[in-house]
């Protein structure tokens, strides 16, 4: 029997959650015995070619590409996991929520202290670029998410224990120190 396929994505995140995944250290050898990692920044596989068992989402959605990506994941994965604060509640990128998009763009491209090279005062607006959303959305505000693993980043032990419990169907018992929001 083939191993379950796992995909991961980093949307509006900082890759910290992926780093934390790698922090499971030598258990990564056990992990590859349990699963195959498919589409993921780790493998650089970019497309879904078959149905996946698990999709792990880091980051919320701040632009149209994030949304499409997330919707792809929902379509192609049986189970979706929001990994980390950004996927769960927007996290740091969501600190712009509530500030009008025009103000954000002005600050980023026109008036910020580090934008003096933008002498023509233009906003990037090529059609190839993703379109910015009015605010940053937690992943479950776009698609249904099955499980949530908090942390910034989530502790490696939490990721490991949760994945093993999910893949083996065992009950999850977590030490207090493992579930944190920071």
């Amino acid at each position: 029997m083939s191993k379950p396929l796992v995909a991961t994505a980093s949307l509006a995140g900082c890759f910290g959650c992926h780093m934390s995944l790698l922090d499971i250290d030598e258990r990564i050898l056990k992990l590859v015995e349990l699963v195959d990692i498919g589409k993921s920044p780790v493998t650089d596989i970019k497309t879904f070619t078959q149905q996946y068992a698990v999709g792990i989402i880091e980051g919320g959605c701040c632009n149209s590409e994030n949304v499409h990506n997330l919707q792809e994941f929902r379509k192609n994965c049986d189970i979706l996991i929001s990994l980390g604060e950004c996927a769960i509640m927007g996290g740091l990128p969501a600190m712009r929520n509530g500030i009008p998009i025009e103000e954000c763009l002005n600050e980023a491209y026109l008036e910020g202290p580090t934008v003096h090279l933008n002498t023509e005062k233009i906003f990037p607006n090529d059609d190839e670029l993703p379109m910015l959303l009015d605010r940053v959305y937690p992943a479950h505000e776009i698609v249904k998410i099955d499980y949530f693993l908090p942390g910034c980043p989530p502790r490696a032990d939490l990721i490991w224990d949760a994945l093993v419990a999910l893949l083996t169907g065992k009950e999850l018992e977590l030490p207090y120190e493992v579930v944190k929001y920071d």
Partner: protein
Amino acid sequence: MSALIQNILIKVGQKKDRLLDILLSVQEAESFVSDENIKIIAGSLQLSEIDVRQCMSFYHFFSTKPSRHRIFLNDSVMANLMGGQKVKEAFEKVLNCKQGEINADGIGFYTTACIGMSDQEPAAMIDGVIFPSLTPERVRFVVEGINQGKSLSDLYYLPLGDGRNGGAALNTMVNSNIRKTGLLLDDYYKSGSALTIAIEKSELEVIGIVKTSGLRGRGGAGFPTGMKWEFCRSSEGAEKYIICNADEGEPGTFKDRVILTEKIEMLLEGMTIAAYAIGAREGIIYLRHEYQYMRQHIENALAVARTKKMLGNNILGKDGFDFDIRIQFGAGAYVCGEESSLIESMEGKRGEPRFKPPFPVQKGYHNKPTSVNNVETFCKVCRIIERGGEWYRRYGTKQSVGTKLLSISGDCPRPGVYEIEWGMTLYQMLEMVGATNTQAIQVGGPSGSLIGKTGFDRKICYSDISTGGSMMIFDQSRDLIKDVVLNFLEFFIDESCGSCLSCRACTQQIRNKLEKMIHGKGVSTDIEDLKKWAKFTLVSRCGLGQSAANPISTSIANFPHLYQAMVQKEKDYDTCFDLASAVADSCKVVNRVPNF
């Protein structure tokens, strides 16, 4: 200190607990309370400015901006049912400003919760004067008149109201619309007869008669009146208070307005009897701000009572029985109808409910034993003392004794006040008012229940379907979810004191979810969520919070099909996210056409 504030402080007292009156007086004189005056008031009462602001900002009718006139248009369910939206648009058009703004001519236009005119909506208050049964044409007529500098009473478009509304003291277009009288509203009341009987008996005998009668509070909660008085009487403390709860804030109710208009003497007499029974020397009518047009009328009645020796010292010659009554105005807060909030408000604070115990009968106004009773309750007492407790028990049912005044409004040809005996079924009620094609009845206002056809055989009484008097009828043409339930939720969100998380935050989440469903994005789990979330509000401190989700829970229970109809068949998850609208703003700013 300005002369104005100085005079006010002399008149109402330079005390923290009179802050509400001080602010109301300033506002009356100047149309608003300026930053400067807030500073002066704070200084003279040894408060910080923020102390004054926290009280002021709790109440709907205070303003920090000057205006020449202020228009408050009711936006309750009933007002909207009767064409309120068109009237609102008419106001906005002729005033050339939006709701919440002051126009170029200095006229402020605001919306407000139910102003107790559900039988003659849409209605507005302009500088305290009631303009009932508005239409867009009447709005134009009134605003143009104001702009021409005419006085408000010259702008009446209807004859003066029925009963005492047309008298010089009231001089209003409001109608009492008494459609059915009973032992309270019948004409045979003779001022002073009940009080004469009462003071010939001992205080305990008076309480005994009220207990025998089985009278229960008519505000809605239904606590036995005699027992309340007994508790209050036996509570320690020489100083005691009688408070008449005339806050009548439950949307859809207006029967207290009618009693205050037509039977004010009976109310004062009932309060005096209560004072005698519990040993109070001071009585206060807590009158909702919306009823300020009745001030002169009530003051006149108080003056008459004083000349007739029914108020004052040695009442009706009874040695040592001293009692007088003053009016305390509210300033616009539904939650102040809850007795402990009402007391907080009377003490010049935000009307946040207190914890119980201690109950007001133990520690109420100024921490002294206080009995707070409803307008209707006091009037019933007069009748009971006159005729006896046994006589009263002949009316109504065994557990729900006597009569009840109903405020009936909505889709029926004869809205108004009906005095019925407890035990009438909702069917009989509909027949009485001539309602046909009825889809639902909201019994007991937003905090009550939305009842459908299957519940129309239920009886109006404490043991079946209890009510403080508000009865709103909706026919088949109405959208119950959008026009009724959603409006009620908004009402609770706005009127919550905000203190309890469960009432403040959960109601907003419920409203948002309902709006999502109304917008066609409902999924089946939404209904389950709403049911569960409604339960979380039950842990709130006061009755408002505990019943804030009643519009949701009772409508889901009694009209499940309306919710099922909002569920999308093809989707089991939908958060209302829409990519096109989410990117619209940013694309506009960077000047590009959205491409997906």
